[in-house]
Each structure stands twice: as C-alpha cells, then as structure tokens.
C-alpha cells in the first residue's frame, strides 16, 4: 500500500487529505500524471515528497511509501 497526502488547495480539490492506494504507478512522475487525469488537475507546480523528503519525478515508488503532494508553499 502507498499513502498519498494532500495539502492546502489540493486537499480541497481532491476532496480528502489522504488516499491509501493498493497499487501505484512506478514513479513519482507517473503518479502525478495519473492524478492529473483522474481529478482534472494541473500539478506542474506541485512538488512531491516521499517519506518527508523532496523527490524527483524519476523516483521509483515502493510499498509503504508516504507520498505528499506539496503545492507552492506560503509560510512565513
């Protein structure tokens, strides 16, 4: 299982802050494309963290990974 986390406007767009998926595509990039298609979203400016560290699109996902979708941040 892979856990997907959504924040800020993405949480509103997806309609939940968390999705547990049994099977996920191979890479971060492929997962983004799939979500864009499923939810009609543009994730080009959304960064992804795997297990609390920023990950590149090429990163291969593994069972147990926590994948967080990070919209442009606005802290401070």
């Amino acid at each position: 299982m892979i856990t997907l986390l959504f924040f800020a406007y993405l949480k509103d767009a997806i309609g939940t802050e968390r999705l547990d998926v049994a099977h996920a595509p191979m890479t971060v990039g492929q997962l983004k494309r799939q979500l864009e298609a499923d939810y009609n979203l543009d994730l080009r400016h959304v960064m992804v963290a795997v297990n609390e560290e920023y990950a590149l699109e090429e990163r291969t996902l593994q069972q147990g990974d926590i994948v967080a979708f990070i919209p442009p941040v606005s802290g401070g």
Partner: protein
Amino acid sequence: MDYERGEKRSMSTFFTITDQPISLEEVVRKVIRPEAGAVTTFIGTVREFTNGKRTLFLQYEAYVPMAEKMLAQIGEEISKRWPEAKVAITHRIGKLAISDVAVVIAVSTPHRKDAYEANQYAIERIKQIVPIWKKEHWEDGTEWVGNQLETKAYPTGKPEGEDLI
C-alpha cells in the same frame, strides 16, 4: 550555560511547528549564549491589508513532521555558511488574527552582520521549502496563497469553488 543546555535538547525544540501562540522570549532564549553578542529576530505577523485587500484572519496549515525537518535543514544550511550562528525557528499554524505572530526566527552570532544575514537567509528559505500554507480569509471569500512572492493567489482551477462564495 544556555548553550550547554541547548545542545542537549533534541533538534525539534529549536525547529518547531505549534498551534499555540509563540513566545518571542522563549525562542530568543534558545539562542542566547555567552559567546554571542548579537541576536536578531524576525517576527512575521498577520498583515491586515495585502494589495489593498483586507484580510479578516488567516488559516495556516503544515505538513508538520516534514515542516520541522525542513526547518532543521535550514538550520544546518546556516551552520555551514555561518559556522558560529545558532538558530531557532518556531512557526505557528491554525487560525491567526491580524497582528498575531506567525513565525519567529532567532539567530545569535558573535558579530552582528552575520546575525542579520543568517536571519534573512532563514526567512527566504522558509518561503521556498517549508511545507506550510496560508489561506486568506477576506470579506468576500477565501483563497489558499500559493506562491512565495505573495503577488497573486495560486490558480486553483475549478475545485474550491464552494469557498469563493
């Protein structure tokens, strides 16, 4: 002495996300030490007007465990560039009213120029890499702020419509 005590604490007390009001004195106390003659702080408060538009209150949200890790990473980056600097950062989340303190960054150094530079570095990096988001609540709607420059709200596409009246 404060320094000795500080070093034994876990990093998380120096780089913290909280849903409680921030005590400025407490953050500053973490970095005061006999070797340091200069402490700078940055205090980010909730501004009432942004580009002429009135904010009623803000809602801050964070990916807490990662946000604390990223704050600690900023601390490490500062240690590399300013080896003598000591840094503590606390960021608040939840609902904040006008003039409430959202973030406090405290940096102590032996000499003051470094304290200013390292502090400014910290706030710039927070606005780049720390997963915290603010939602503006205006008189006529709400919006997640989505870029670091605060010049425009992030285009959310079609969802979130229910929030915009």
